[in-house]
């Protein structure tokens, strides 16, 4: 039995397992975002910007808490695992860039790459999730959209100043981070257990909640490419980047 708009708690056992995994990925991703924004505080020079970064971190924490609460309401377990392999690799890439003091790379990882995926996927979940769950995803997607827009504006300015330099920076972190995200959304598990799904991968069961990993991946890559277009990067370059991602 599929979840209905009026009563999400009537979902089948498999659908509940899917919701649990979606909420676990979302909560863990938000907490990774929280830590990333917190790391940005040190990289900003201006006090106002430091405050903004901290506020963004708090917003991400709020999102994670919201996902955990929704899980409780639905009676599904929400796992937060900051050492889950994929998320750990993304955090490591961010920490590496932060360690170099590379603000641009950090901005690109958190606010362009992760937020592109978050906006796209939360939007997709919002379209199919019942009741409060759907509303929560829709509201959080809107807030993440603001982060993405903020990043695009900053990166447009950077591109105007130094197009080839910004292109090099994004190319570098694309290799590190987008490869991991591509593995996460591949049709089948490339690296094995994500350590957030439970015993078996939930991707084949996404249709239980009217989702589909192929469409989720496609729409996320589409938004990422359009974001890069808006920054100003040449389409033939970014197309090559996408074709080289793991599948």
């Amino acid at each position, binding site marked *: 039995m599929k979840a209905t708009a009026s009563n999400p708690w009537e979902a089948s056992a498999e659908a509940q397992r899917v919701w649990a995994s979606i909420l676990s990925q979302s909560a863990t991703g938000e907490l990774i975002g929280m830590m990333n924004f917190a790391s940005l505080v040190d990289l900003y020079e201006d006090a*106002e910007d430091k405050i903004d970064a901290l506020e963004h971190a708090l917003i991400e924490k709020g999102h994670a808490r919201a996902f955990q609460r929704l899980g409780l309401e639905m009676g599904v377990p929400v796992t937060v695992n900051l050492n889950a392999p994929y998320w750990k690799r993304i955090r490591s890439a961010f920490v590496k860039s932060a360690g170099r003091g590379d*603000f641009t790379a950090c901005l690109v990882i958190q606010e362009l790459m992760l937020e592109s995926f978050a906006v796209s996927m939360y939007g997709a979940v919002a379209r199919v999730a019942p009741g409060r769950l759907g509303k929560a995803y829709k509201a959080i997607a809107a807030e993440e959209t603001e982060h993405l827009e903020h990043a695009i504006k900053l990166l447009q300015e950077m591109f105007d100043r130094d197009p080839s330099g*910004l292109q090099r920076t994004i190319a570098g972190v694309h290799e590190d981070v987008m490869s991991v995200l591509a593995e996460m959304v591949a049709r089948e598990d490339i690296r094995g257990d994500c350590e957030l799904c439970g015993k078996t991968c939930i991707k084949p069961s996404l249709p239980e909640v009217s989702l589909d990993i*192929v469409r989720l991946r496609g729409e996320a890559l589409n938004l990422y490419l359009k974001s890069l*277009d808006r920054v100003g990067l040449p*389409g*033939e370059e970014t*197309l*090559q980047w996408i074709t*080289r991602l793991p599948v």
Partner: protein
Amino acid sequence: MDNAAPRLSSPAPAVDRRRPAKAQFALIGHLDSWEKTAAVVQSLRGAGRHPISARDVREIVPFLPPRTVCRVTVFSRDGSSAHGVYVDAFLSPDRLDEGSTREKIRRIREAASYARREGASVAALGGFSSIVLEGKVDLLPNHDEVAFTTGNTLTVAYIVKAVERAAAIAGRLLRSQRILILGATGDVGSGCARYLLSKVGSLLLCARNPHRLRRLQRSLASGATAVSISTDAERFLPEADFVIAAASLSSPRFSLRSVRSHAIVCDAGYPRNVLSDGNPGPVVFFGGMGQVLGGLQLDPDLTSVLAPHPAPNIVQGCLLEGMLLALEGRFESYSRGRGNISPGRVDEIWALAEKHGFALAPFFNDEGFCEGQIAALRRETVT
């Protein structure tokens, strides 16, 4: 680059603007098979990576937003050159005539916006990108800033010049030949009909819409040449000396089983119109294409996958029209609407093509060059 965190409100002084050169023209197109699409993806992916599966290509490519695939430089015979981009709309090759027309138009509009972003002053619409619009380039965004052309006038020029040349090689007087045009009411088909009307023995026109067929027949009636119409291709195929296949099809549909063995078939469809059943039959060549004698450069070099032809620098006429207009500095919607291609316009674009060395492509098909097969028809006639 400077990695220090900028002020959120920092001004953006111009320091370094090493961006790709602004395009003068854009070629908006799509690939006509998944095999070709996979080849392009694999080529962009690079030799070091494991081949991407056909399934992954089919699952990922339809989500790609239209974008530049490669930069193009075209060289004229007079020594000048023009820079442009090939923008792919990423229409799914197997869904060209099904699925949402709105979705296809949305993608073509996005591709048109992309052409504007690249700075193109003129953009040619290849294959289905002009078909779904039926030549109504005014529907495209930024049409007041970018001159969109369907490119059909040059396509017609290459088709009719190829028919004239093939007739000469085969030792036939065009004036005695029966010419069948499949897809006759389309922009390309009707342009060929108008051009050939006074030059051939008779015209056999075939299309799906009987009203449009009758209207076209009436418009051609003033000439001395007999013009017959039918919605059934099989009725005319056994009678034709030449067949011009210019229908808007998403995949090959016309069988040549009933065509006489001495006939010459010009398949000008993109995607192709004519079924290849492996049986011996009439000579088929791929028409509507030209060869840039001055040369073409693609960056990245996707020539072998985008234009896998037996001779270099062969391109569809519709795309060549965009390059030609850029070389001429004529940033205008040269071909627009449907049914507007006159013999005078064909002669004019052909003169420009000759000026810049955009020659008629050699006769070829999937098997390779086929001019020898056309010449053999002369020998058969003589013996």
